[in-house]
């Protein structure tokens, strides 16, 4: 498996937030979801950068919505999880699970 096929950490975060939001997923909502769930204040630019990468890999698909007045007449771009994205997330989860299996981070596991 090539290196590029693993999800980066931030990509994983974005993808999960997007998956949770289902059809309501667009840039600012994803940013908000990440902040609500993880307490991380991320810039909207970074979210878009990650989404762009994910779209290039075929993990997500975007479509342009309707312009609204509160957006200064600008359209929204909605994102949907693609099958490949779901597979990648699943694989990341299994990878995490495999790595965590039988691991306890007690006081004996690290140097004091």
């Amino acid at each position, binding site marked *: 498996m090539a290196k590029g096929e693993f999800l980066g950490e931030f990509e994983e975060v974005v993808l999960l937030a997007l998956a949770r939001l289902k059809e309501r997923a*667009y*840039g*600012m909502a994803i*940013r*908000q979801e990440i902040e609500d769930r993880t307490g991380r204040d991320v*810039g*909207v*630019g*970074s979210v*878009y*950068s990650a989404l*762009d*990468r994910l779209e*290039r890999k075929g993990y997500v698909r975007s479509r*342009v919505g309707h*312009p*609204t007045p*509160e*957006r*200064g007449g*600008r*359209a*929204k*771009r909605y994102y949907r999880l693609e099958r490949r994205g779901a597979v990648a997330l699943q694989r990341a989860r299994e990878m995490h699970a495999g790595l965590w299996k039988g691991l306890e981070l007690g006081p004996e596991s690290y140097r004091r």
Partner: protein
Amino acid sequence: MTGRRPVGGDGRRGAPKLPQLLHGLLLPETYRDDQLGDLEEAFGERQRCLGRAAAVRWYWRQAIRSAAPAIALRLRAWGGARVHARAERKGSTSMGTTLQDLRYGLRSLIKSPGFAVVSVVTLALAIAVNSAIFSLVNVIVFSDLPMEDPATVVMFRANNPRLGVEDRSRAFSYPDYLDFREQSRSFEQLAAMASDHWVLSGSDEPMRVDGLRVTANFADAWRLTAAAGRTFLPEEDRPGAPRVALLSHGFWSRHFGARPEVIGSSIRLDGAEYTVVGVLSPKMEFANLAEIEVYLPMALDRANSSRDGRHISITGRLRPGVPVEEADREISIIASRLAQEYPTTNRGWEPAVLTARDSLLDDESETVVMLLVLTVGFVLLIACANVANMLLARATARGREMAVRAALGASRLRLVRQMLTESLVIAAGSAAIGLALSRALMGGLVWITAGRQPIFQMAVLDENVVAFTVVLSIAAPLVFGLIPAMRASAGGVGAALKEGGVRASGREGNRARSMLVGAQVALALMLMVVAGLMTRTVVALQQREMGFEPAGLLSLRLDLPENKYGDDGRVRQFFQAALDRVRGSPAVDGAALVSTRPAVDYGTIRVFEIEGRPQPEDAEPFTARTSLVSIGYFDLLRIPLVRGRVVAAEDTEASMPVAVIGREAAERYWPGEDPVGRRIRIGDARATDWIRVVGVVGDVRGPEDTEQPVPYVYFPFRQRPRSDMRLLVRGAGDAANLAAPVRSAIWGVDPDQPVDDVETMEQVLYDFASSSYALIALFTAFAAFALCMAAVGIYGVMSYAVSQRAGEISIRMALGAKAEQVRMMILGQGARLVVFGSAAGLLGAVLISRMLGSVVFGINALDPLTFLAVPAVLVTVGLLANYLPARRATRVNPIQALRAE
């Protein structure tokens, strides 16, 4: 937030424009709308729950944090395109190449830091002055006017050539306004305004507030809505109407903490209670309206006002479909009718109707602004020429590099693009530095003008200025980069690679550079002439005879509240007591009162009659600037007595009314006669008594920029008391040290009396002239910059020429030419540049000086001193810049030079 808000800053609730613009520039097209829309939406939510300030901060943070990812997105898009194109076997696409060019350009600039720094700094300076001047133009042309639909709002101006009154707005009388309103049909509304001021008392210490009296239809004419409460009702400007007031938004915020319950409450102005009915929109704090704190209705009472009191301004709203020219014509017709009907007061006054935007600048200022724009444009051209020059030199040096690249298969287009990208990199760096510098420059202008010129404070770096700078930094490289790029890439592979081929194309390059330098010299000369003429004008204006001694004088304003000092007796009493106390202070040598200070105050111009001399129908009326003075005024200011006597203790309210006149009034109205003993009568409604002229004093300078002395007539303060006077005080030492003892002397008479505008007379004079100083500072700085650039250009070209001709020079010297001869040869080559450039520049300067005709005073627009001195300076500097390379030419080591051949 209680601070003064920026003009128009609160009207929009949208996201801040500047970060939006900058972020939008960085974002690739694909994501621009999505991301800006997201930000806008989230901004709106934040603004609703956290307030605007927090939301704006948040927006800025988001925009800054998103800059790097935005660039990453852009690069990825290019990269993607490149990969895509390669797949189609079409070679690299434009975006991929641009990226390559960018990298290459940056690298080559870093490798020659000297060139990079000099060119970036040169351009940055030029861009800075352009952005700064554009931000002034921006205010004039693009700023939000406070009124709705400003295109149909007009302002009246008045001219009276004989009195030297030009384009004055506060120059109409109340009856005139009513006549215009009744007789004209071009306007939906005509409203009047007059500045006024009151003492606000009640809660805190008494304070002076500046205000405007307006007719009740004022808000309708400008289609203003109140930010809170309401505007005036139609009946509220009738006499006897209940007392109501409007507050400016800034005053409401600053003084009343923006508390809503202030509306409906009452405030005490000059001792009378006024009900606050509303707060005007913050948009009203515009230009000179920014200082207005309170608006009161102007009580309409025809019977009580004279046509002679010209102190109101008129504004109006055109009827739909009526062009401003038609309104102007109609008003002129009505005015000429009025002039026939009331010749003593109205003859000679010509009104003009202008749109609100046109009225921001009078003709003279417009010329100055145009000159500034032209000047900074020249400065930019000169800077571009310099950078082009350096690029040309580099191009010649890089001839071989280009040839190698061409040999390896680079197309000519590709090479030109490569070089242009480099120019663009230089320009981008300059634009960033230039913006920062222009901010500093505007700060400097505010400082020079001591904050007296609102336009400099209104000029801010908004999105228009940023956009202008971006456009400049894209356009400039096309100007300075294209020719060098074309030249560098020309010449074919073989020629450039051949030994000595570089030299051949180098000579050709030098011809282009010489032309550029010639153009620089010409432009520099024009700028220097403009700066010279402006400086000479200001000097001429400042050198006009003052007629009095300002050094050591302290000036204070004493404006008595009407409620406390309602009648003349009390006014006289207060001022007499204040004068006695101030004169009694040990620090004070002398003190006097005056209503209109010389050289700076406009005061009132009044029409008068001369006894036994009927006013001829067709002649101009007798007019003079009038001033009320106390005993001791002329001595204090050291204005000489020419004949008769000055105002004395015998001139009381009970004695015969008298006047003292200035020498110009005497010579103009009593030519060849002795005016002392003659009688005059002021042509207003109340004038009944004849006034005897008892003396003639020396002329003092008037406030206008005219060369002619102004006729003055002085009346004794005791005979015509007035509640708003200036107290002038002279002491032994520094006038500024008098402030404390004088204040305490006045508070000894009335502890509640506000003492305002405490300044030394020299400071007052400086402030009055400050905008002229700012202008000559600007023009001189531009000219100096241009001169330096031209010198650097000459030096560069001649040094290069010397290095090119090293071989030739060494042969000459080996054959016995003397150092002197060689020097002269090189100097001659350089002198040609300077002379041709100067000749072209002189021609241009003559053309420009025609434009200057209206702003030049006291000297001819073709002022011989300027037109001789400027070329002399330029030629001297040019030859100096030429001398260094010429001297180096004679130090060429012939052996070395010939070996290199």
